[in-house]
């Protein structure tokens, strides 16, 4: 599975995945996902090109989500197809991380939450 990481000027890290998030796919991206989850402040995971997701892929996403939430960082998932979204909802991943129809909506929602948090602190 291909994994492309980019960062916007607004500080949003985008991870775009392409392929099958199965046993092999999860093994291919686990290490890089862990690195991103340790550093990113706002992370949007684009699943629009992920055709398949099984429990090991969910595991990779959950490990990253757990790391980021404990760090006080923000994470969202965008663009999941019908089957992939069903897997995310049946495992309860959506209780942990917001699911959005596209990356723009996800980035806007997370950026807004981050700004709101910062304004409350100051």
């Amino acid at each position, binding site marked *: 599975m291909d994994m492309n990481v980019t960062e916007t000027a607004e500080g949003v890290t985008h991870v775009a995945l392409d392929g*099958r998030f*199965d*046993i*092999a796919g999860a093994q291919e991206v686990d290490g890089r996902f862990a690195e991103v989850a340790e550093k990113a402040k706002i992370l949007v995971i684009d699943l629009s090109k992920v*055709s*398949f997701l*099984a*429990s*090991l892929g*969910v*595991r990779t996403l*959950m*490990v990253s*989500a*757990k790391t980021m*939430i*404990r760090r006080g960082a923000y994470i969202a998932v965008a663009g999941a*197809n*019908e*089957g992939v979204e*069903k*897997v995310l909802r*049946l*495992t*309860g*991943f959506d*209780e*942990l991380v917001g699911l959005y129809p596209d990356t723009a909506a996800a980035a806007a929602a997370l950026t807004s939450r981050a700004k709101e948090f910062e304004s409350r602190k100051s």
Partner: protein
Amino acid sequence: MRSRDFPGTVEAAADAEAWLASESGALGLAGDTTFAINLCVEELFLNAVKHGHANKATISIWTEPDGARLEFVDDGQAFDPTAAPAKRLQGPGTDFEIGGFGTGLVQKFTRRMTYRRAEGANRLVLEFDAGPNKNPDLRAVSAE
């Protein structure tokens, strides 16, 4: 009915899924059904090999008038996935153990499961709806 044997290795799960994608295409199954079949086989394979220490698995697939059927037979330790609790995260907290979601997914992605232990093997028959293809992209990708 088409059947094939696979060795009890995690890597063989990918071979099984590729074979099933081809068979599903030949049987004219909808993309949703192919997705569900692939998901169930990956989870069953992982369970059988990692937890049941199976040395081999035999997969059979066929259709009935009301949908598709898949039989998964493995020679691992006895395990009845129809009786296992389905795990799901509850609430937004991060104090949870990651893993153990596979069996619940198999239960939810099948219409019905029938399990029996016979001749030293787990024999599981899964039933799937073969409804209209709601997402053509799934089928196109799965049949690659």
